[in-house]
């Protein structure tokens, strides 16, 4: 049983969509949708699932726990790609990137939304979250 971040991901349709917010005053689009009292200032919207890679890097060392829930043991850790994906006329979203060959990543690369499971330390629940992959 994987833990899912359902406050950011809408999976009610055929394909997953990110949940963003549109400011009721300026019309600006933000991600994620603000929670708490700030939520009153935004309308919930589903962001477009396709975009272009805006920048990226490879996470070559394990992030620390807390807050990271994935594998932190250097012997078991696998590097992963992260980047910003520009959703045209909406917002630029930071996300994990799924790609077999890191060398293929380049700015401007067309990307589409998917989900991914992050392996955790043994005995812990895996976590499922949003990610972008090349079209």
């Amino acid at each position, binding site marked *: 049983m994987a833990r899912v971040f359902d406050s950011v991901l809408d999976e009610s349709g055929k394909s997953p969509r990110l949940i963003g917010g549109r400011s009721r005053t300026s019309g600006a689009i933000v991600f994620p949708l603000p929670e708490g009292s700030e939520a009153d200032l935004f309308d919930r919207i589903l962001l477009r699932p396709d975009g272009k890679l805006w920048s990226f890097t490879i*996470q070559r060392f394990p*992030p620390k726990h807390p807050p990271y829930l994935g594998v932190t043991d250097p012997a078991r850790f696998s590097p992963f790609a992260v980047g910003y994906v520009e959703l*045209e006329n909406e917002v630029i979203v*930071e996300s994990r990137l799924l790609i077999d060959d890191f060398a293929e990543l380049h700015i401007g690369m067309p990307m589409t939304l998917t989900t991914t499971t992050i392996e955790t330390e043994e005995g812990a629940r895996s976590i499922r979250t949003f990610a972008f992959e090349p079209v």
Partner: protein
Amino acid sequence: MEDCGLTWPEIQFAFGGSAAAGDADAMLPRLGLTGAQFINVANGCATGGSALLSGYWAIQSGEFDLGMVVGFDKHPRGAFNALPGELGLPDWYGETGMMLTTQFFAMKIRRYMQAFDISEKTLALVAEKAFANGARTDHAWRREPVDAETIAASRMINDPLTKFMFCSPAEGGVALVIASEKRARQMGRANVKILGAAMRTRPEGSFEVFAPSLSTTRGVAPTVLASQAAFEMAGVGPEDIDVAQLQDTESGAEIMHMAENGFCKDGDQERMIRDGQTRLDGTLPINTDGGCLACGEPIGASGLRQIYENVVQLRGIAEDRQVANVRLAYSQVYGAPGLSAVCILGR
């Protein structure tokens, strides 16, 4: 205090900061419980710059004429580890491995390199210069020169930045005495003056650390605003500066900060660095003590280390790393979640 010929009871106020080594005012029992005003400052990596600015304005207000700004820190090994809740961010952002300062630095320089034709070799040259300067600096932490080839070939941390292109959090401390001009004259120490000082927070559309999303309408960095304000206050321009200490949390930051602080146009860094213009014998020496790359990044202390180095350069007592005829010295420190503090000193 010894350098100024002062004792602690004469100090009227202090501003101090530390991010990971406890409250700065924990020093008070050691310094003496004189009742002096002591305010703790916390502003991310710009804590030191913010402490100085607080002290500057305290004196400018006319309320005080002699004070201390102090900063120190000691960090655990490895990358800084921020928790989302402390910055008003959702937990999943950290839980899924995106809340790392190193990722931000890598992605900011990646985009900048593509937009303005900066090569990976230039990233290595910045670090090579830092360690060359650090080897001449008694307060530096890394004091061994490292050549550009070794830097480029060292372990990749966050592409395109390798291990030797990043500063290490480390530990350290700095204390500075500041005084009104009148008081400094009475002390016979009115030789270095604060000509301009400004701190600015991020405007709309700037690309900052710890951002789950960015606006598609892009804006300038807070450093641009702080730099412009400090230059205006000092009545001088970038072309007048003799040495500059620019926040170099990694090689890319120094390159981008050269342009954000007005010292060159975007993209000119490639040629300037290749030609050695930012070395100690260049036209604009940058990070003369090796910066954060050689001195580490104890958050509370770093911004004040830059000021210390500029004072040493202005006094002409920097020995092996002394730049000739320094009259105007510039410093800039950047911190999460998007703020920048600039100080221009002159003699």
